[in-house]
């Protein structure tokens, strides 16, 4: 009984890690896209937009690391 319950949590852990991993991928897409966008149209908020997208990527990477450690 305990073995099967443990298996559920292990399976769930991998589902969560996959979700966090996918989110990191999404964050990478946002970073590259903001660079494309600011090259296409540069204005007064370029630096802020790029900074926010990098912070977003760092945050999602930290969340992934946290999930690997905690889950």
């Amino acid at each position, binding site marked *: 009984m305990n073995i099967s319950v443990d298996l559920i949590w292990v399976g769930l852990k991998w589902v969560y890690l996959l979700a966090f991993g996918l989110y990191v991928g999404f964050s990478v897409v946002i970073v590259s896209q903001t660079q494309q*966008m600011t090259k296409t*149209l540069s204005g007064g908020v370029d630096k802020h937009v790029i900074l926010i997208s990098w912070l977003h990527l760092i945050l999602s990477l930290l969340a992934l690391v946290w999930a690997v450690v905690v*889950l």
Partner: protein
Amino acid sequence: MIAMPEIYNAAKGKGKQPIKRKPSDYSEVIRNFAHAKGLLSAFVVQPTQVRMGIQQSDEKILLLLRRHWITNVKWITIFGLMLIGPVMLSVFVDQMFLPSRFMTATVVLWYLLTFGIALEGFLSWFYNVFIITDERIIDVDFVNLIYKNISAAKIDNIEDVTVQMGGAIRNVLNFGTVLVQTAGEKTQFEFEDVPNPQEVAKFINELMLEEEQEKLEGRAK
């Protein structure tokens, strides 16, 4: 040796005609909306800080258009609901069978997704622009952050400009779609949900007239 008589002497220096007139000289729209300079605005006249990657050295951006701010309500509402979602659902947390570490991970993932949706919504609004320069009209489209499309047509190639405004909200908030038919490779440009669509159409007509005038006066490039 007899010097050739000077039959015609083109004006040099002082009397020389400028190659281009100032937009405010020929455009009533530019004069009326000269104050519209906000960086986060949907209707920006002669933005000084903005520059396009495909902009030519002597080309000036005269009008930068984005969708009306009301079109952001959808993602802002979703963002707001997602922000308060976990708080509202906390009533049901006791009934869930997840261990606390999984519950925390769910909340972290949820708020990351919330932030991502807000960022994607803002970027899509801010960088999907319609630009009118003194030479061209340009439509910059970024679809779902992975697809980019930039179309441009010369002012000379514009054949027809149509304004579409339907519905109560569009009429009250004065926004709509400007359709520009061109003789170029892309035959139709859609400036969707832009503020002051009638003024935009009027401005394009003013530019077309100025382009004609430039040709007549030999000022065209």
